[in-house]
């Protein structure tokens, strides 16, 4: 794929007898945000650590910018990656600028001060550069941690729950920053528990629960996994209408007085259903297609997986 920056092929990670991530495969391209959803302990952080070259997969492979990530190449490839860890991890006794300058040295940045100021400006905390990191609010600390991840201008950005525990305004600001990363052509992988955030920011969404349960664009994910739910209000009792519609739906069909509720119907067939009703002399008052929410899809997939397990 053109612009592909990350390729994970069947990566598996075991910790003793416990499998944290099992045969996970996906690609991530420049200018794309992939939101990684999953319950606690689903392997999201482990996945990020494998992609960030902090730990190696037990099986499978990770390619970063077309190069295989191994024990030998990890230190070099980490230069292409900016990582926001689960906690901001700032040195509280040092100023914000001093925190970032240390990282500028760790990335061998030639003009560290400029790089630090640029990164702080991106996240809107340049005016707090001289403050002690320990004096910042949680939201500001998270912004500084994101600035740290962007300090060396990485092509790939890995974010572990970037807005967890933040107030709405801080979360909004961080979401804007993340959207800006896509606009700059960076590849972003973001772990989150916030389904709305995943839906609004993610070009694609991956649902992980040790194994990859689903991976697609948000709309497609809702459609393909649950089908479309359609409510049809007709004049009079809906019994006759139900007889006509029956042949179109493999899923549920419910009659509630003058209302037909079709669940799991193929969205492409809805016009045919309407045409058949009209041909059958049914007068239609209103058709309401209703897709299931991402939350429904997520819970259905995760619960199904847990039942199987």
């Amino acid at each position, binding site marked *: 794929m053109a612009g592909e920056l990350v390729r994970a092929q069947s990566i598996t990670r075991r910790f003793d007898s416990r499998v944290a991530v099992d045969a996970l495969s996906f690609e991530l391209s420049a200018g794309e945000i992939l939101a990684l959803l999953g319950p606690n302990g689903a392997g999201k952080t482990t996945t990020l650590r494998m992609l960030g070259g*902090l730990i190696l997969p037990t099986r499978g492979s990770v390619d970063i910018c077309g190069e295989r990530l191994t024990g030998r190449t990890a230190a070099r490839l980490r230069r292409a990656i900016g990582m926001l860890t689960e906690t901001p991890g700032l040195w509280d006794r040092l100023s914000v600028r001093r925190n970032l300058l240390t990282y500028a040295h760790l990335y061998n940045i030639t003009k560290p001060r400029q790089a630090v100021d640029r990164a702080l400006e991106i996240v809107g905390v340049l005016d707090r550069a001289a403050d002690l990191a320990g004096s910042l609010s949680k939201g500001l600390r998270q912004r500084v941690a994101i600035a740290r991840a962007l300090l060396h201008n990485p092509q790939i950005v890995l974010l572990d729950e970037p807005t967890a525990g933040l107030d709405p305004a801080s979360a909004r600001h961080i979401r804007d920053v993340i959207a800006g990363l896509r606009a700059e052509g960076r590849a972003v992988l973001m772990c989150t528990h916030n389904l709305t955030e995943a839906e609004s920011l993610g070009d694609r969404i991956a649902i992980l629960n040790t194994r990859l349960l689903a991976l697609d664009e948000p709309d497609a994910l809702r459609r393909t996994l649950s089908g479309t739910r359609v409510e049809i209000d007709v004049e009079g009792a809906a019994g006759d209408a139900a007889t006509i519609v029956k042949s179109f739906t493999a899923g549920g069909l419910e009659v509630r007085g003058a209302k037909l509720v079709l669940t799991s119907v193929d969205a492409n067939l809805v016009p045919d259903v309407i045409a058949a009703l009209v041909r059958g002399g049914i007068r239609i008052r209103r058709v309401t297609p209703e897709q299931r929410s991402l939350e429904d899809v997520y819970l259905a997939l995760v619960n199904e997986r847990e039942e199987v397990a």
Partner: protein
Amino acid sequence: MTPGASQRIGGLVAKDLAELSRNPGATVPPILTAIAAMVPAFLITIVTPKISGEHVADAQELQRAAQRAAELLPELGLLAPNAQVQAFMFQQFALFLLLVPVVGSMALAAHAIIGEKIARTLEPLLATPISTIELLVAKTSAPFALTLALMWATLLVYVGGIAAVAEPDVWRALVGTRVVVMFFVVGPLISLVSLQLAIVISLRVNDPRSAQQLGALIILPVTGLFVAQLMGGFVVGVNALLAIAAGLAVVNAGLLYLGARVFQRENILMRWK
């Protein structure tokens, strides 16, 4: 080490120095140890005789011990009896100053390593291009440098204090091969043992104070040697110090091997809970 290693290590060492210097919990115990290690020598050798109106050389046993020590340390033989006993006592107590590198290294390293572990600042560090060996070198360099600086400053104050309050020329008798070996060979080696022990202990404990308590185990041999020296009325000579240094070098090599095994990215991330 890969290209740019010196910049990465230097950056982290500068950070650690800045952070440790702002952390009284890390810096106060070594400073107090330095003071506590110096005070008894002056109390016993200078203050007590002054209060009692006697000379230390009046104690026959001490005088005999000082004369025996003069066979090992010729610089003592050139002194008058009272100065000779004073110099003998200060030579004995100099060994006590080796507690400074033990306590200093352990306290500073515990904060530099376990402090990062508690603050959860290690994972972002591990996500950078720094290699684990570079990280290990950086994390031990700042405590090592600070400890050596403190140990040598303590020695300066000790010798300066002797010059100020003891008999003339006692301080000269102190500045010889024995003290050089003690503070420029044995001291740094003890400091390294303490530092490396801190790294190994870091795997198991989550509190710098617990690490310091465990690390206090290496205070015992130093204190034991000091007490044996005091009770036996002898001084640990240059050859004995060199033998101790050789032993410490071996211990250091073993701890380096153990530390390198413990200080791995995956260990730090997954097992340092």
